[in-house]
């Protein structure tokens, strides 16, 4: 399907295109079953950042008020990129891990499924 319009063309750029990020990119990530944090988080990051650094220095501190945060071992996580199975290389950069502008990363940690194991 496509939009109906008056005139000769209807063509506008995406408002969230990568060109608007001054060399950085926008990224989304969620730790499944930790719903006291209501939604996947949004980040503005450089694609050259190391994946482990991103995880440990940027992502993990965002869950600071969750009792699971000190128990987590990301190496044991089950990972998805754009809702598809995916195995990240922790020593490589975001870009080298195929993480692109507006990518969505999902990680779940079997055994750590929120307080009382119910997803909170």
């Amino acid at each position, binding site marked *: *399907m*496509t*939009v*109906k*319009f*008056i005139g000769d063309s*209807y*063509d*506008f*750029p*995406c*408002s*969230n*295109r*990568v060109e*608007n*990020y*001054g060399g950085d990119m*926008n990224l*989304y990530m*969620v730790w*499944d*079953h930790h*719903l*006291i*944090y*209501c*939604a*996947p*988080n*949004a*980040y*503005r990051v450089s694609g050259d950042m190391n994946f482990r650094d991103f995880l440990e220095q940027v992502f993990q501190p*965002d869950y600071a*008020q969750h009792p699971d945060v000190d128990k987590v071992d990301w190496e044991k996580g089950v990972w998805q990129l*754009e*809702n598809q199975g995916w195995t990240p290389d922790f020593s490589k950069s975001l870009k080298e891990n195929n993480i*692109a*502008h*507006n*990518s*969505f990363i*999902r990680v779940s940690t079997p055994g750590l*499924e*929120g*307080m*009382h194991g*119910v*997803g*909170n």
Partner: protein
Amino acid sequence: MAKNQRRLNLSQKYQLMTRGLDWETTYQPMDKVFPYDKYEGIKITDWDKWQDPFRLTMDAYWKYQAEKERKLYAILDSVVQNNSQQNISDARYLNAVKIWMQGVTPLEYAAFRGFNMLGRGFRGAGARVACQFQAIDEMRHYQTQVHAFAHYNKFFNGFNQHARIRDRAWYLSIPKSYFEDAMTAGPFEFITAISFSFEYVLTNLLFMPFVSGAAHNGDMATTTFGFSAQSDESRHMTLGLEIVKFMLEQHEDNVPIVQEWLDKWFWRGYRLLGLIGTMMDYMLPKKVMSWRQAWEIYWEENGVALFNDLARYGIRMPKHHETATREKYRITHEFWSTIYQFSHATALYTWLPDEEEMDWLCAEYGELFEKLYKPRYEYWRELDARGERFFQKRLPVVCNVCQIPIFHTYPDDPCKNICLVSEYKGTKHQMCSEGCKDIFDREPEKYCQAYIPPQQIYQGNCGGATLEDYRKWLHIRDEDAGEYYGSEDNQLWEKWQAEAARV
């Protein structure tokens, strides 16, 4: 004036105004005079078949409305004189009024703009006249609400920047984008979106909780403008139903187009009303009914009956209605959890339900509430007691269509966030549901332009990257935001209660 001049009766006046004033243009082709009412593909063969059951004329309109205004402002005067702000159930209640003032009152103004465009856009004069009357009604609703709430602004926070935060605040982009989506469509889609889906199908879920909530919670000002607007609303609802039937009866080619619009605007309306449901369940100290119950009465019974009626035109139930019904046990709790943790970036206060409210929520929502949401609130209360009131400091992903932070969960798994992706022009876009994804995929050229607050903040367009900078840009002050208990509203209320106790 000649003595024997015959006076026109109302129906003759209406006939002249809606038919006699209209003509086929000859200097310019009609398609140039009315350039907007064909491109959507809706085929109208005979505009004279347009029926307006109200058949309002100018003099009748002015007479009714002036009478209503006189009554309304007499009561608003007495609200001021009697310090009626002290008679509400509790100052927490005012956050329901703030949501309305910040989120819904600007929609009245948006409706005024939209119906003005329609009042010029349709080539049938009957439809144009009905839209012009509605435009004036909507302007009146906007004004009377601002006047009614102005009194609360003298005492309480969060009322003083409604026009500015409407344009800027992340949570108000939800209602704002709803109307702007409609206004940037053609006139037939606009009227289907606003008059039918919003005012006819969903209005009871919007107006009922707010106005009866106001009455229940001792808010005279709101109750009064609510009743004053109600007779206008019944006219607007009728317009919605008439226009949909008119399109369906005029040409069979219109049926699939109207069906697509009903699918889209049912889902958009449902998503928007989640905010109002949350107000009902959490912000009214004296409850009217739960969102679940309201959904059962106003959608599962009344809404479904309406769609059954439309079946004879070849219309089926709107897509994804099953998902909406399935979500009735969770949507308001997910929404409240979100507002609770982001209220430091709103002009609202939030709080955790007290014990009595928790019991009410358990009774209304059963097993899922007890298993998932109650322990969540209990943990947050624990944090609160330790002086670590729970606020989320990171920006969330937001749905590219409904513009709500994607707190939503899978239809079959309320413990797992959903986040769907569509790629267009090499850019990925995130959506909260199959309903919103369908809307995006149908017109990606349109939704790829959406102004999504967290994206704009990260792109550097909203005053800065920190929360303090952003809040300053919103013109929201520290004291307007965050936790209710301990807030200025809370302190003022306690002071009034103490004074009343002494008397």
